[in-house]
Structure formats: C-alpha cells, structure tokens
C-alpha cells in the first residue's frame, strides 16, 4: 500500500512539474510579459527597461529553474503586477474558492443523491422522468447563462440575494447553485445506476427477507455500496470546481483563485500563474487521495485488495 502511495505521489509531482513548465512556456508564447507589464503606451525603450529591471531579460529556462529552485525552498516569488508575495495573495484568496467549491459540491450532492435514489426506487415513473429532466437541463445549460438567469430573477427582479462580492454567506448562494447545478446530472445518474444495480442484488433481497425496515435496507445496505463511485466522481468534480470556477467567480465578482488565475494570465504575471498551477495541482492530488481513502472506508474489499 505504501509503495503504491509513494509511486502515485511521484507521478503526481511529475505531473505538477510538467504542467508548471507548460504554463511557463505558454505564457511566453502568448506574448512578452514585459510588454504586458509596461502597458499599451510603452515605448520600446520602456519595455527593455522593464525587462532588465524585472529580470525578463534572462533566458526562459534560467527564469524557470530560478523559480523552481525558490519554490522548492518554499518561496513562490513575488507578483510583478500586484507587488506582493505570491503565496500571501493565493492563501488570502483560496478560502473564497474553497467555500464556493465546498458549497457548490454540497448543493450538487444534496440535490442529486436523493433524486438519484428516488429515481432508482421508482424507475420509469413520473419522479424518474422529473429527475431525468433536471439532469438534462443541468447538462444542457451553460453555467454562465444559468448564472445570469439567477441574477436576473433572484438579484434584480425579486432582490432576494446580493449579486456580487463575498461579504456574507448570502453572497455564495447564487454562485454555488450555478456552479453546483452543472455537476448534478452526473452525480444523479451515477447514483441512480448504482442504486438500480444494488437494489437488484441478492444481499438486498436477503436483507428484505430478514424483515429489515425499508429505510434501513435503502440507506444502510444499498446506498452505502451504490455511492462508492459517486465519491470518486464528487472528488474529481470538487477539484474541477476549485480550478475551473473562473467563469462563476468572474460573473459574481468573487475574489477567488479562479478569478486570480484569469487575471494573471491576462497580464502575464508569471510567478503568480506558476504558483496557482502548483497549488491547484497539489490540492487536486490531495482530494483524489482522500477520495481513495474514503472509498476504502466505505468498501472493505478495496482495503483488503
């Protein structure tokens, strides 16, 4: 088990390094960072001066290795645009993204799992059809459009919720729904399929024959097994939400990591982009690892194997 974990960790580190090298190169391919920093009206001499003062005149590989060396010592560098330590900015904005990701995945699970279970108990019924409709709509709606619809009704027409910012918990309701709804169909379908399979198995028939209450059969015996693939999917989706919440953070002006990443790409803020990629990679690896542990806890067969 330890050997397996170490091997996986090694691969994950290599993936993180590759991604960071690619990010570094791609930012250069999209244009000169010194030009981005110098601004639109800068002259050639202004840009050359910026390049010299901020170290962009070094060969790209030297810049990358210098960044990597510092990162390995815990120094992620300073943002040339924000004029502050990259790590401070990232860890100040990470909570907003974590809250958004956490509440969105919670919303998705709270909506999707009961719907999936109900749809499995009554397959092909009207409830199943309603659940399917919800799933299809969730998959078909682009999240930015759904977000704008929410803003229109809940923010402007009925004025029930604040639209932008992060000043209170109410600010996270609309973004969480908009972000979480996109995940709902997958989770719901997986829950439904898992439950249908489990409910038809022998041990469930035995449990029913023993006279156990239907609720006990459903939640203690059936759902626990059916939910194992859902845990893996939810973990992957949570990672996706942390790294991929750019659109939602942008629409709702949430000062999080996704928004920071987008801004950093636009202004070619190399140290910031590198650090964001690194931090998100590490978080993603951790989430996947935790999902494995949770699966093992839910299913003893995984532990034994």
């Amino acid at each position: 088990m330890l050997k397996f974990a170490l091997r996986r960790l090694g691969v994950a580190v290599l993936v993180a390094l590759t991604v960071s090298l690619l990010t570094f190169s791609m930012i250069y391919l999209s244009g000169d960072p010194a030009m981005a920093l110098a601004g639109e009206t800068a002259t050639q001499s202004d840009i050359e001066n910026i390049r010299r003062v901020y170290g962009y005149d070094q060969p790209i590989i030297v810049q990358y290795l210098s960044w990597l060396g510092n990162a390995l010592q815990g120094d992620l560098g300073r943002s040339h645009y924000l004029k502050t330590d990259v790590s401070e900015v990232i860890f100040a904005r990470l909570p907003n993204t974590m809250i958004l990701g956490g509440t969105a995945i919670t919303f998705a699970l709270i909506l999707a799992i009961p719907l999936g279970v109900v749809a499995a108990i009554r397959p092909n019924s009207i409830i199943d059809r309603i659940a399917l409709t919800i799933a299809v709509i969730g998959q078909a709606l682009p999240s930015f459009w759904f977000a704008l619809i929410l803003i229109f009704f809940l923010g402007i027409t009925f004025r029930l919720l604040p639209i932008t910012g992060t000043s209170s918990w109410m600010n996270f309701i609309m973004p969480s729904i908009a972000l979480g709804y996109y995940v709902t169909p997958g989770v719901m379908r997986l829950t439904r399929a898992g439950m249908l399979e489990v409910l038809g198995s022998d041990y469930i028939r035995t449990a029913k024959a023993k006279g156990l209450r239907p609720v006990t059969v459903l939640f203690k015996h059936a759902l626990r097994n059916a939910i194992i693939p859902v845990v893996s999917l939810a973990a992957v989706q949570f990672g996706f939400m942390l790294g991929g919440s750019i659109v939602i953070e942008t629409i709702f002006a949430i000062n999080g990591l996704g928004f920071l990443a987008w801004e950093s790409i636009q202004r070619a803020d190399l140290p910031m982009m590198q650090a964001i990629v690194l931090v998100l990679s590490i978080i993603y690896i951790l989430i996947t690892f935790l999902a494995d542990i949770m699966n093992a806890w839910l299913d003893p067969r995984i532990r034994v194997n």
Partner: protein
Amino acid sequence: MFRKLLATTAIALAATVIAAPSVMAGKANDTLVWTTDREAAVADPYYNNTRELVIIGNTVWDGLLFRDLDTGEFKPLLATSFKWVDNVTIDFDLREDVVFHDGSKFGPEDVVYTVKHVSNKDNGVLTFKNVSWMKDAEQTGPNSVRIHLHKPFPAALAYFAQAVFMMPEGHYDSAPKNAEGKQDFGTVQPVGTGPYQITEIVAGEKIVMKRNENYMKNGPKGTPAIGNLVYRTIKEGNTQIAELLTGAIDWMWDVPKDQADRLNESGQVTVENAKTMRVSYMAFDVDGDSGQKYFMDKKVRMAVAHAINRESIVKNLVGPASVVIPSACHPDQFGCAQDVPTWDYNPEKAKKLLAEAGYPEGFEFDIYAYRQREFTEAVISDLAKIGIKAKMNYMQYRKLRDLVWKGTTPINHMTWGSNSIPDVSAITSHFFSGGRDDPAKDPEVIAALEKADTSTDLAVREAEYKKALTKISGELYWLPMFTYAKYYAFSKDLDFKTTPDEIPRFYTAKWK
C-alpha cells in the same frame, strides 16, 4: 512560513464566513461606488499603468499643473505660477497651503524628490516615457523649484498636469526589498495631496477612498462634495449592469451600445455617450515585410480606404460621440490638423483602383486586431464587397504588438489612447518618428515631427505637425478610422459630468 500561510488562510476564511459589512453605495450612504473590469491592486500611478490608476492618480494625487478641460489652458495646481526659463528649463513657484494626507506639509523638497525618483530609469516606473523627459530638479527657494529637461519638450505642461504626481519626500525609501534585493516601490502605502485619500486596498476587490477634509481651498479642482469613493472590480459587464440596477454600484462605463440603448429606454439610470482620447487606425505594411506585398502599392491602400464605410461603423457600432478622423491623431490634441487628404466611402472607386493595381478579382490577406472584434469584422465585411478577403487574426495586445514590431502584419487594426495627453506628440510622434512602431520610416515625416516636438514656438509646431500628418494621410501609411466613444451609465441620484479625455473627475461629482 507554512504556519503563517495557514494563519492567513484561516483568518481570510473566518472573515469570509462571518458576515462583514458590504460596500454600501448611493446617496443615502454618501458613497459613490464606481466599477470597471480591471483589478487595481497597486495604488500608485507610477507602478500601475492601468486606466483605473490614471483616474485614481488624478483623484488622490495632484500635479504641479491642471488642465482646464473647457479652455484647454494649463493652470497652476500645486504650483502658483510657472515660467519657461529656456526651452529645457521650467521654474515653478509652489503653493504654501498644501498638506499631504499624512499631515506633512508639501514643499519644494517633495517635488525634487519625486522628479529624481521617477526619472531614474533603475526605479522601474512602468510608463517611463511619461517621465523620461525630465533630467533633474533643484530647489531654488523656500517655495520654488527648477526642473531641467533632457531636450526641448513642449508637451511637458500636459504631463505635469496629468502624469507627474507629487509624492512626499522619502516616500519610496521604505519600500520592501524582493528576493533579488530590489525595492518594490509599488507596495508603499499611498500618500498624496489630492481631493480624496486612500483608506483601504483589498487586492482584486476594491480601493476605498474618503474625502480629504484638508484639501487646498480655491484650487482649480474645487472642493470634493461626496464623502466616500469606492472603486470595485467587477469583471463581467452584465453583472455590472445588474449591480447598477439594484443600486449596489453608482457608476460604470464601457457599456456596449445595444445594452446602453436598452438601459436608456428603461429610464432607471442615466446613460451618456462621451468621446475619449482613443482613436482607431489601420496600419499598412507599406514595405512588404510581412511577405504579403499587396499594400506596398498605394493604389491598393487607396482601394482599402475607399472600401471601408467608417461613417457606418461609427453610427452603428461605436456611438454618437464618435467621429471619423482624417488625421493620425485625435482632433482634440494640439497640432492635430484636420485639413489633410481624406478618403471617402466609395466602393466603386475602390474596385476600379484594385483593378488598376492588377487585382480585379481581389486577393486574400491577414488582418490583425486585439480590441472590439466587431469593429474589425465590419471592416472585413466591407473589404469583402470589393473582393478582398481578409482573414481575422485576433489576439492579445502584447502578442500583436510584438508581431507589429517584427513587421509580420499586412494590416493591423489598432487603437491608441495617448495616455489622455492632449498633444500630437503623444501619438503621431510616437508612431512616425522612425522607431519600431513606424510602418513607413519616411524621412520627411520624421524630420517634420522632430522639429515640431522640440520647438517651443506653437506656430512652428502646428505647421510641422500638419506637414507630417498630410504626408501620413496622403500616402496612407495609416488609414485613420474614428475616435472611440464610451457609454457611461450611472445612478439618477448622481450629478456627474462626462469628460472628453477618459479621466472621470469624481471629485467634481455630487448628489442631486
């Protein structure tokens, strides 16, 4: 290190979950909240060159001079008078009643310190050309200074009014050092003398300002009426509109024309279209460096000029405050002659010229753009009508400018804002003085601009600029397109006057 970061995260998490008071906008709270789509984390006009910091720079800091937008005249602001000693030396007498936001008194030593700091190349001022023309400064009396220029620079007054802001002596000395041992000057707590002072900066979210109660009396900027000013970053335009309609913000700009029309019809907010100093132009590869040689032939350039319906673009896409321009500059800039060769919309003439140039069936080429895609698409559509097929290459500005400098763009459709400097030297001289931005490197144009840029005789300057602009438009090195106009939308409670230079003066705004 890890503990510190963990603590930062925990504090930020707690601060987010425990409801904090949000920014309260509007007349009732005496707080004007304005928004744009950009992050303004560094609140120093020398170390952040976004438009937002140009606006905040003029709100929180003062220059030695002030430009009266109604008359175009330069008036003393932190100075009481100024005088050209010769064409490379200017003397200023300073006001004695000005204090910085930290309570310290403003004086000549602050001017000397600021000029010495910003004109030092090693200090990394981002838009160095705004200050590079200053050589040195010296105190000449208890309330007077002398500023030396590297060479004659008649546009200096415009820069003293809009780009050279005064910092207190020693302001940047405490800037922290980065890993390489260099000081990060943009991190210093902002201190100015302007109508508003910065009280809080939340990177990526907002900059909070309050009225400077000790602001100079009887100054040309007047006395600020609104108590608090908050800048907020809201990236998405639709969200900005939603927040304006719900009263969470009071002011926004860059509203697309269709949405501005709808907002105007709703009557819920005030919508205005105002001109800006930005112009649109198309630069031709007149040397054929890009490998696509079509535009080396003046007849082809003329065909393109006659094929594009600039009036239609202005009317249907830009807005009523926009105008078609004949010269390679903004009509409001000093020296921007308007009586230069013009190219009317005439597709039939364009087809004829194209045939004369040897392309009766047209040709295919690459057009490059970075801003307002729909404007360039309108150009492509017009060119298609005479048989020229333009392939769109749309990219980020920094990438495109690199390509322009390398000479690989047959036509680049660009814009230029001149840093809102009302002088032709901020645009025509930038592009046609023989540098990498110059598509033609025409010796006649270069000589005329050199003479105009260094003469202090206004008549000479005007005549030389006209000579250069006539050649540029006549030879079609550029096809000047139109001036940009912006749609503003703001609260009905707000008495706000739009300005023609894209620098909103919030210190003159008041509640109705």
